[in-house]
C-alpha cells in the first residue's frame, strides 16, 4: 500500500499511522527549511574578495520567535498523542468483554493459554498453543503477557502492537484486528542468543471459524483425558 | 585563617548535644508511636533537621557564600524527582 508502513490491520493502527504522518509532515517541513537555509547560507555567504562578514551579536525578536513557535508545535504534537496513547495503553480504558488469553514468553518461544470450555483463565481446562495464536477478527482481544525468564517483547507489526513482557508482572495488551490472515509474531527485546529466532504466527480468523476452531480444541482437550491433560499441561506441549 | 577574622566558633558542643537528643528522640518515636504514617513523618522531619545541623554547623555551610548553598542543593530536586516518579510505578500494581 505504501512504501513506509506495511498495512495496518487493527482498529487503532490507522490512528498511530496518522500521527506518524503528521509528525513526518511537521518534521519534514522543519527539515527542508533548516537544511535549505543551511546550504543556502553556505553558498551565499562564502568568503569572496571585498566581502566582509556583518558584525552581529543576535536578535532578540528572532530569538523569541524561534523559541515560541517550536514550543507551540511540539506541545501541540504531544497533546495530539495523549488521547491515542490513553486509548491504547491505559488499562482502565480497555474495551469491555474482550476475549482474554495469557501469553507466556520464555527463551525462545511463546506459549498461548486459552480459557477453554469454562471461559475462565487459569483453570484446569485451559488449553495451550506453542508459537501460535488464534485470534477472531473484529473482536477486542486482550493478551495478558507473562514471562518465565527474562524480558521479551510481544510484537505484531501489522497490529501496531508492541509490549515488553517482564518477568514478575502481568501486562495486558489489547487489540482488535480488522482483517483475517496470517501475521508474524516477533520478539523485539534482546532476550538472549536466540532472540532473533523467537518468532511465531498469529492466525486471524472470522468469528465463526474461530469458534469452530475453539470448539475442536476444547473437544480435543476433553478427549485427551485427565491424565494426558496433566502431562500436556506439565510439559507445556501444544494441544494440536 | 585570616587574622582579621573575628568570628567565634559555632557552638560545636551544643550542636552535639542537640544531635544526640534528636537521635534519642527518633528511637523513642520509632518505638512508641504506633501510627505508622505519623511515625514516618516525624522521623523524616527529625532526621532532616539533624542532617541540616551537621551540614550547616559541622560542615560550616552556614558560614559559606550563598553560592555554595545553591551548589549543594542541586542534587535535591533530582533525588526527589527520581524517587517519587519511580514510586508511581508501584501505586497501581
Amino acid at each position, binding site marked *: 500500500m505504501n512504501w513506509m508502513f506495511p498495512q495496518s490491520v487493527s482498529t487503532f493502527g490507522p490512528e498511530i499511522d496518522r500521527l*506518524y504522518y503528521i*509528525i513526518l509532515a511537521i518534521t519534514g517541513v522543519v527539515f527542508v527549511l533548516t537544511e535549505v537555509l543551511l546550504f543556502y547560507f553556505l553558498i551565499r555567504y562564502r568568503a569572496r574578495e571585498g566581502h566582509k*562578514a556583518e558584525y552581529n551579536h543576535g536578535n532578540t525578536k528572532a530569538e523569541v520567535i524561534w523559541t515560541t513557535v517550536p514550543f507551540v508545535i511540539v506541545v501541540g504534537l504531544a497533546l495530539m498523542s495523549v488521547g491515542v496513547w490513553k486509548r491504547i495503553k491505559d488499562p482502565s480504558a480497555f474495551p469491555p468483554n474482550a476475549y482474554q488469553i495469557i501469553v507466556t514468553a520464555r527463551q525462545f518461544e511463546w506459549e498461548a493459554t486459552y480459557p477453554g470450555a469454562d471461559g475462565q483463565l487459569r483453570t484446569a481446562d485451559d488449553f495451550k498453543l506453542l508459537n501460535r495464536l488464534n485470534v477472531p477478527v473484529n473482536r477486542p482481544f486482550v493478551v495478558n503477557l507473562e514471562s518465565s525468564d527474562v524480558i521479551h517483547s510481544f510484537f505484531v507489526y501489522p497490529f501496531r502492537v508492541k509490549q515488553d513482557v517482564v518477568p514478575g508482572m502481568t501486562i495486558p495488551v489489547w487489540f482488535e484486528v480488522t482483517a483475517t490472515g496470517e501475521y508474524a509474531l516477533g520478539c523485539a527485546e534482546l532476550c538472549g542468543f536466540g532472540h532473533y529466532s523467537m518468532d511465531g504466527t498469529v492466525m486471524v480468523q472470522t468469528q465463526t471459524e474461530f469458534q469452530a476452531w475453539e470448539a475442536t480444541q476444547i473437544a480435543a482437550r476433553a478427549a485427551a483425558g485427565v491424565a494426558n491433560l496433566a502431562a500436556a499441561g506439565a510439559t507445556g506441549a501444544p494441544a494440536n | 585563617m585570616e587574622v582579621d577574622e573575628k568570628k567565634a566558633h559555632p557552638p560545636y558542643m551544643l550542636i552535639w548535644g542537640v544531635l544526640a537528643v534528636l537521635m534519642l528522640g527518633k528511637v523513642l518515636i520509632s518505638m512508641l508511636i504506633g501510627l505508622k504514617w505519623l511515625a514516618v513523618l516525624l522521623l523524616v522531619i527529625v532526621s532532616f533537621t539533624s542532617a541540616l545541623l551537621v551540614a550547616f554547623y559541622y560542615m560550616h555551610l552556614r558560614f559559606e557564600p550563598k553560592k555554595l548553598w545553591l551548589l549543594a542543593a542541586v542534587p535535591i530536586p533530582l533525588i526527589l524527582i527520581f524517587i517519587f516518579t519511580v514510586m508511581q510505578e508501584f501505586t497501581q500494581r
Partner: protein
Amino acid sequence: MSMTATRTDYDLLPYAGEHHEELSFIRKYIFSTDHKTIGKQFLFMSLIFMLLGGIMAMMIRWQLGFPGQPMPGGTLLPETMSPGGIILPEFYASLLTMHGTFMIFFAIMPLLVGVFGNLLIPLQIGAPDMAFPKLNMLSFWLAVPSGLMMLASFFVIGGAAGSGWTAYAPLSADGQYTGVYMGQRLWLLALFILGFSSITGAVNYITTVINMRAPGLTWFRLPLSVWALFITAILALLAMPILAGALIMLFTDHALGTTFFRPAAGGEPLLWQHLFWFFGHPEVYILILPAMGIVSEILANGARKPVFGYKAMVFAICAIAFLGWIVWGHHMFMSGMNPMLGTTFMFSTIVIAVPSAIKVFNWLGTLWKGSIVFHVPFLNAAAFVSLFIIGGLSGVFMASTPVDIVITDTYFIVAHIHYVLFGGSLFGIFAGITYWYPKMFGTMMNELWGKIHFAGTFVTYNLVFFPMHELGLQGMMRRIYDPNNYVYLQHLQPLNTFISVSAFALFAFQMIFMVNFLYSIWFGKKAADNPWRATTLEWSTPSPPPHGNFQQMPTVYRGPHEYSVPGAREDFSPQWESGGAGAPSPTHHATAH
C-alpha cells in the same frame, strides 16, 4: 574560613614563565600531570578504542549484509566466536553489546570530555593547568585499565557480555540466561571503574572553571566550548554515580545472589531500567553538549562572525542539561512502565526540542551574512548541524508515545542513535580534532586529505544510516542476528547488503583520517601560533604551548567570539588584546617565539 584569592595560594600552579623542574621521560609522557599531555593520552586511547568499536561494527554489518557467509579473516578468530569464519549468534550478541559500550563509554565520551575537557579548559580560561593535576592523571590511568578489562572480556570463558549496552536485567543479572558469567562481571566492573574515572575528571573540570579563570574572564565571556564542557561535567558528576550504584547492585545480583533486579525473589527488573536511564539520558547529553560547544566555536571562526545569540546559547545548554534529567522514561514507554508516566515523560521529552531549536537556529544565524572560509574543521562542523537536525527530528517521532509503539526497538532507533552520535558527536569530534590539532601537536593536518575524508565520510555515512529509518519502518527489530528468520523481513536483505557495503566504504574513509592524523604528527606542516586567526586564549600561546601554558597570567578584555568587529585592524579581535580596535598587545608579543 576563606583563603585569599591571590595566586599565592599554595594550591595554585606555576605559569610557563615561572620556574619548573625538568621531568624524566616517564613523568613527562606516561605519568604526566600536564593537562595537555593527558588530553593527548586520552586522544590516543579513545581513537584506538573507536577503531576497535568500528571493527566490531564491520563484523556486525558483515553478518547482516551477508548472513551465514564466512567472514573474510573470520577464521582467525577463536572457534567460540566464528567457527569457519561464520559469526555465531552468541558472538553477534557480544559484538553489538561491546560495539555500543566501546563507542559510547570508551570512544565518544573520553574524546569529548577527556580530550577536549583536558585540552581546552585550562587553555581557554588562561590557567596554567587543571586545579588537581594528579587527580587528572588518576582519571586517565583509571580509564585505561577499565578499557583493557572490557576488551579482555572477549577472551574469557563464555565470551563477552551479550545483553546490550543497556544490560537489561534479568538477562544481565544471572549468567544462566546467556551462559556469560565472567564476561558480564568484567563488563560491570570495567564500567564501574570508568565511572570513577569520569567523576574524578568532572570534579577537576568544575573546580577549574569556577576557580581558575583569568582576570576579566567573566562567566559570559567564557567560550561556548568551556560552557558546554562545564555543564557536561556537572551532568557527569551527578549521573555517573547513579550508574555506579546500579552497576554494583547488578554485580551483586550476578555474582553474589542478591535480588535487586531478579524477580524470582522479589526484585524489580524495571528498577534497573529506571536507574540506568536516569543515568543514561543525561549521558546522551554528555555525549552531545561538548560537541555543540565546539561546533559553535568553529562555525563562528569559519563564518568570521560572533556566535549569534551567545547568551541564548548558554541558556539553551543549561536548559537541555536540566530537561535531560526528567525525560529518562522515554526509553521505557513499552517497558511495562505505568502508562500514565509515559504521558508525563512524553511532554518533558518533546519540550527538549525547544532549546535544541534555539541552538540550531542560532547556528544558522551565525552563518547568516558571514564570510565563510571552508576549512576542514568548518566543514565538519557544518555537517554536524545538518546531521544533528536529522537525528534530533527522528527523536520527535519516538517522543510521541503512540508512534514509539511502532518504532521502538527497531532500526529506526538504530538510525536515530547513529545520527545523533555519529552525525552529531563524531562529526563534532572530527571538527574539534582538526581545529585544535595544531595546538596539540604543533603541526597542521593535511588539508586536502582532510577534505577527502570529510566528503567521503559525509556521503557514505548517509548511505549507511539513512536507509536504516526505512528498515525500522518495515519492522526490522534491532539486535537480531539474522533478520531472514522472519519471512516479512526477507525482502529487506538487498537493502541490508547495500548498507553493509556502504559501511565498509565508510570504514575505509576513516582509514584516511587515521593515516592523516598519524602522518601529520611527524610530517605535518609546522603550525603557526594562531593558524585559524581565532580569538580565544589558547591561540595566544605557542603551538604547542609550553608546560604552564602562558608566560604570565593572561588578562581578558572582551567576549569570546569577536570576529569582524567594525573598525578593527583585523577581522578577529582576540580576547587577550586590550584596546577597542585590536591593537597589538604586549602579551601577544611576549608569547610569540
